[in-house]
């Protein structure tokens, strides 16, 4: 059994690795007020470049580190130049979405090049352990600590004693004033992205060596951990990011020591939520620093929604309703059923993110809550499936709103981070709460959909059922948007301070939006559970959250018809063009990037 000292050493070493990611995030946030969700992808790229260097080119360790740092920096520069610089004068949400799109593209490219199977990444260091007090430490631990300290020192010298470093600091404090001193902000951005990417890439390499394994799932994990560490330390605060990382590493390590490996991430995200709730600006942010700027108003591209006449909608619904009467294949119906289920999720997200302005990145958690509730109600309590699905919707509405409520006072990027964390927490609770959720084994033998005692087994009946549910939810939401509630939601999105001055209670309206949205998503999850008959903690993952976000942006944020159109397009078109499954996520990422660049208001316009 390892000693506490071992856990401390392990925590500090892992914290060092997080710090390399978090410092880059902090630098980027400092100069461009952007949380770079592609940071983990660069880390992934770094790990795989390291693998190529070590395993195929047999480079010596120092050379490997240099190769990885340089290659990753180049990737960072490309991202900055072609992904983000064109969006400089765009709405605030654009670069955030672009980094999400970029991360999908990069991750998929790595996966397509190297296959998703894990690979071993040997460290090239002798496998010996030195006895230190009650614990042990190995050469790799020392290497990681050394790289961490050296990077911190170099960064300090850069920021403190070089002209470009001064420019970085000045830009972080006041971008316009820095420009008026003659600072070329594009060069500052380049420098920062290059440095952040080099550090991130090296971090990926070191982690790969530490666990002697790399796989493509590393990317999202790294982004999450980096963001947690950075936000804990105070967004944009470079020394804060280092301390936040070490703290995160220690919390995780002690958490693992107490409860086991599967609790590692749970501790990380709980730390984040606690910090966001108690000190939303982080532990080490100085009180003087401007609070997170109101990201409302210009956060979402304003536009005039495309007007669709009522008869056209009626014709479209009628057309889809009578579709099964024609000789269409099972495959077409199956595809459309998926579209309707995604449509319900998109309705939920478009309300929360579009109408209310709370860009949620953890929406799949609502699916999971609905699915598990409905599955467990029907399996263990023998509740009729129809009622169980409604129970799933209600549970999702209640629990989802309850979980997100501590973050109601957050804005902009912070909402996205909080929802992402809460989504991960839900998945981790499902994984670890074995007595109820059956943990990693998942729930199998979920009864099929049934209504008033009739089983809905044929694709036609399921098709009609899911279409009807989605249409009802869409009508309800349309009604909601034209009511005074809808206007209040939009008022809060556009300017929450003004809305408050007019007497709108933010918590109440945010709760209402999440209750309605949670219900729609929970229903979707519930139906899906009975359709799949087997679910586990990975059935509803972050990829689905991002897919839903892409759908909603494609349709136009807040746009009810747009959400459904987006679902049909993103589910249907890959089928029409017979695109292989492994390319789909790549395509979603590219779609997201193109949308953000060329039509940020979506196909039908934001509402």
């Amino acid at each position, binding site marked *: 059994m390892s000693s506490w000292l071992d856990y401390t050493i392990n925590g500090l070493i892992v914290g060092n690795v997080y710090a390399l990611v978090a410092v880059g995030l902090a630098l980027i946030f400092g100069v461009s007020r952007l949380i770079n969700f592609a940071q983990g992808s660069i880390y992934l790229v770094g790990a795989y470049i390291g693998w190529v260097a070590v395993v195929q080119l047999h480079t010596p360790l120092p050379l490997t580190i240099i190769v990885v740092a340089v290659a990753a920096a180049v990737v960072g520069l490309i991202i900055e130049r072609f992904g983000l610089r064109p969006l400089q004068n765009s709405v605030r949400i654009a670069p955030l979405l672009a980094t999400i799109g970029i991360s999908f593209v990069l991750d998929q490219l790595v996966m397509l090049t190297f296959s998703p199977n894990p690979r071993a990444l040997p460290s090239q260091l002798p496998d010996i352990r030195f006895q230190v007090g009650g614990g042990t430490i190995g050469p790799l631990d020392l290497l990681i600590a050394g790289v961490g300290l050296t990077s911190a020192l170099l960064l300090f010298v850069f920021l403190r004693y070089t*002209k470009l470093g*001064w*420019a970085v*600091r*000045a830009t972080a*404090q*006041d971008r*316009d*004033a*820095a*420009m*008026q*001193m*003659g*600072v*070329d*902000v594009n060069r500052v951005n380049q420098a920062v992205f290059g440095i952040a990417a080099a550090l991130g890439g090296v971090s990926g390499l070191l982690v790969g060596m530490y666990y002697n394994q790399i796989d493509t799932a590393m990317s999202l994990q790294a982004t999450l951990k980096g963001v947690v560490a950075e936000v804990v330390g105070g967004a944009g605060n470079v020394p804060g990011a280092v301390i936040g990382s070490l703290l995160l590493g220690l919390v995780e390590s002690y958490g693992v020591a107490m409860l086991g490996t599967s609790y590692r991430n749970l501790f990380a995200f709980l730390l984040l939520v606690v910090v966001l709730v108690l000190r939303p600006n982080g532990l080490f942010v*100085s009180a*003087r*620093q401007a609070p997170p700027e109101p990201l409302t108003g210009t956060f979402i591209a304003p536009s005039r929604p495309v007007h669709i006449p009522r008869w056209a909608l009626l014709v479209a619904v009628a057309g889809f309703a009578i579709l099964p009467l024609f000789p269409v294949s099972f495959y077409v119906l199956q595809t459309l059923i998926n579209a309707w289920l995604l449509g319900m999720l998109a309705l939920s997200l478009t309300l929360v993110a579009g109408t209310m302005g709370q860009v949620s990145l953890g929406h799949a958690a609502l699916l999971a809550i609905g699915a598990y509730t409905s599955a467990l109600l029907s399996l263990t309590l023998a509740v009729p499936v129809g009622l169980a699905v409604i129970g799933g919707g209600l549970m999702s509405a209640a629990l989802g709103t309850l979980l997100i409520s501590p973050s109601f006072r957050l804005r902009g990027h912070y909402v996205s981070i909080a929802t992402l964390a809460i989504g991960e927490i839900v998945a981790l609770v499902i994984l670890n709460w074995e007595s109820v959720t059956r943990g990693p084994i998942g729930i199998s033998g979920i009864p099929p959909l049934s209504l008033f005692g009739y089983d809905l087994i044929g694709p036609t009946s399921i098709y009609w059922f899911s279409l009807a549910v989605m249409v009802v939810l869409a009508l309800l939401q349309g009604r909601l948007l034209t009511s005074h509630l809808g206007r209040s939601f939009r008022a809060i999105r556009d300017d929450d301070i003004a809305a408050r001055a007019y007497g709108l209670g933010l918590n109440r309206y945010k709760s209402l939006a999440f209750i309605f949205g949670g219900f729609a998503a929970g229903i979707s999850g519930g139906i899906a559970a009975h359709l799949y008959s087997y679910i586990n903690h990975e059935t509803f993952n972050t990829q689905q959250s991002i897919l839903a976000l892409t759908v909603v942006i494609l349709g136009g944020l807040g746009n009810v018809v747009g959400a459904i159109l987006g679902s049909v397009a993103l589910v249907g078109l890959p089928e029409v063009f017979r695109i292989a499954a492994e390319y789909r996520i790549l395509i979603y990422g590219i779609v997201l990037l193109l949308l953000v660049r060329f039509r940020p208001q979506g196909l039908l316009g934001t509402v």
Partner: protein
Amino acid sequence: MTNASAEPLLALSNVNTFYGQAQVHFDLSISVARGHIVCLLGGNASGKSTTMKIILGLVKPRSGDVTFDGASLLGLSTPQIVRRGIASVPEARRLFADMSVRENILMGAFVRNDREAVAQDLDRMLTLFPKLGQRLSQRAGSLSGGEQQMVAMARALMSRPRMIVMDEPTMGLSPLYVDRVLELIRTINQEGVSVFMVEQNASLALEIAHEAYVLQTGKIVLSGPARTLKDDPRIRDAYLGGSEAA
């Protein structure tokens, strides 16, 4: 005088600016002669600060031209414009709050590469603004408003500009510092730096300016030598309304 020096250092000609649909400037024309202090007066929302932003390239006009020393500034980025010799003292000073006073002042010399001369200029600033000497290693954000204004002016001078543009340099300062700032503007000007300043406080500005323009909802409604404007009843009515005390 020769023709060359008769040409203004800075000229805005027929500038029309829009924020979305809303027009901010209507055929705005302003010129700053070499070696002069020119003041742009106007109330809130008259388009004064936008004029500053146009000169610095932070906002682009839809039509019209901005020339500095005979060459157009349109199409240049803010850093490029700064390199042409225009320094700025922005509204509310906009210091780099977490950097030290020394670092702030030296940031003003960002476009220069002559290290020894920069060091000499830093010393010169300390004789011009003696109070800053004891404050050099302090965080800029911890200074008082008046001291911050000194830092902002020193920072602007460090680029050895041919012209300084100032946005409401006396705003929010105590009467003592207002006088000090005006005196310093005069000193700077006597050393050969042209000054374009935007002010709300007409009586103070007209004390030191050579020429002045009055901007009202985006149009120049009055202009001329400061001495004449001071006695102009229209300006007295519009801007010195509260000057019964004077």
